[in-house]
């Protein structure tokens, strides 16, 4: 029963020592972060990993551990999400499987890149730069899109633009029928999207819903009802794969941290989901865009600002 009492001690004590991150952090701070980001994800319908990872880095979790642990946490949040969508019949398993094939390849490559960069001592920089670039581009796109949507609601007689174009992609081989997505397209397209997002998600520790969902809607032209469930479905497998390889290659998965974040996250997501149902979507997306841009700005500042001491020590070096 020593384990049970140790677990109890952790929850009573304020500081919790994270065994893999090797830092002691306040357990309520971590629960709060999980809940806050979970609430946002319930509110906006995205995973929130791309916000949680930078926040974890801000509070002192080493970037490599933050990224790998986040992958583990994404598995848990995606499972609970996909079960809800499955119950409503909103998962295109065939589409998910094709994207997954690409995703496994891409994320394996991503973990290898991660390991090489870690050995070169440049992983922290690479994570930060990847975040600044993706967060600022997505933030700007979202801000423009939601601002346009807000403007449209004031002039409701304008027609929405065409969803998917007929272009070179129609000529690709391996055409497949995806019933639930209402598509007949080359399997190379979803597999390719899975591959690219797989690389990004392994390096950044995000599920990649914020990359996948726009790609599925705008590049594939999928039926919107199946998009979120299908992306969550393939994220479970890709992130399980990433978690395994991060643990095996880099020993950077902190189970304890992932569990605390999951507990906070599921509670927050429920609150967010209920709140989101009562708020208008365009304003929400605009708010979200602002928040993403602020996070990107914070990370950019860390990269550019002169450090207090430019020297750091790497124990057990070379």
């Amino acid at each position, binding site marked *: 029963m020593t*384990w049970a009492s*140790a677990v109890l*001690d*952790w929850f009573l*004590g304020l*500081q*919790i*020592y*994270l*065994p*893999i991150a*090797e830092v*002691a952090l306040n357990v309520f701070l971590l629960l709060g972060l999980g809940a806050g980001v979970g609430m946002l994800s319930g509110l906006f319908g995205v995973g929130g990993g791309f916000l949680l990872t930078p926040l974890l880095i801000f509070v002192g979790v080493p970037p490599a551990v933050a990224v790998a642990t986040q992958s*583990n*946490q994404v*598995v*848990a*949040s*995606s*499972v*609970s999400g996909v*079960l*809800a969508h499955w119950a409503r019949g909103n998962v295109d398993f065939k589409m998910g499987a094709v994207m997954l094939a690409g995703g496994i390849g891409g994320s394996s490559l991503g973990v290898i890149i991660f390991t090489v960069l870690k050995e070169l*001592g*440049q992983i922290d*920089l690479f994570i930060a*730069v990847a975040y600044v670039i993706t967060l600022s581009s997505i933030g700007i796109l979202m801000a423009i899109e939601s601002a346009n949507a807000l403007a449209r609601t004031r002039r409701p007689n304008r027609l929405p633009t065409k969803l998917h174009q007929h272009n070179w992609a129609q000529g690709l081989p391996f055409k497949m029928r995806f019933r639930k997505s209402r598509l007949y397209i080359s399997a190379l397209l979803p597999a390719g999207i899975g591959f690219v997002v797989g690389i990004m998600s392994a390096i950044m520790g995000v599920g990649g819903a914020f990359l996948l969902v726009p790609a599925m809607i705008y590049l594939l032209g999928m039926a919107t009802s199946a998009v979120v469930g299908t992306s969550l479905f393939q994220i*479970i497998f890709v992130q*399980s794969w990433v*978690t*395994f*390889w*991060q*643990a*095996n*290659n880099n*020993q950077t*998965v902190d*189970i*304890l941290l*992932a*569990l605390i974040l*999951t*507990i906070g996250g*599921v509670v927050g997501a429920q609150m967010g989901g209920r709140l989101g149902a009562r708020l208008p979507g365009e304003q929400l997306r605009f708010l979200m865009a602002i928040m993403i841009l602020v996070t990107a700005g914070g990370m950019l500042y860390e*990269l*550019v*600002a*002169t*450090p207090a*001491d*430019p*020297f*750091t*020590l*790497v*124990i*057990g*070096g*070379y």
Partner: protein
Amino acid sequence: MRALLRALVLLLGPLLGAVPPAQAQAPLIADLDDHLIAITTGFAGADVLLFGTTDGPGDVIVVVKGPVDNVDVVRKERVAGIWINRKSLGFQNVPAVYMTASSKPIEDLLPEPLRASYQMGIPNIRIVPVDPADPELGEFSAALIRNKQASGLFAPQPARILFIGDRLFRVNLRVPSSVPTGTYLAEVYLVREQKVVGVQTTPLVISKIGFGADIYDFAHRHGAAYGVIAVLVALFAGWLAHLAFRRR
């Protein structure tokens, strides 16, 4: 030769588990109140009491060293506006922790050559640069010591050893919360008239203990199994969350 052997036995005796010759003429006997410091989930540093007696008036110097390791000192440089890890210099034989204590300022007790040979004082630690010819070596070794001091692992000032009467002494050694694990050595020197007349070494083991240590150990020894468990735990947690919040 005999004197050297004797010093060696005195130095290594406690390490090898041998009882130091407990003759009355031993000039110095010292010990720690605890030889094991356990780092548990709530570890916030610890105090270790070092105490002992001498065979008469004299001064005492204590040097505590953590296990040695290789350290890379990495310098960030600004490239295209961004701070990037660029130049790195390796150092060998860097003690994880370095602390001293003395009953009087060490400079007053021993001449510099002796202090250097006993590695007393931070500048006398025998750190070996991998590339001794590097022109920026001075800057990098200064950064090494500065960073070690900033993280509390190299004590910048010696602690004060208190004498009770002229034979009994004690000093409180502060072990910071960030200490790495391993076997530490406390070397205790008895000094008279600018000479070391007695030496005793006593070990201090610092190790991680408890659930957190088990997790760390398992993650590093069985990475693949750890990965599988991490995934299974997450799948299970997600399923539980779904059950808990399912719309009824």
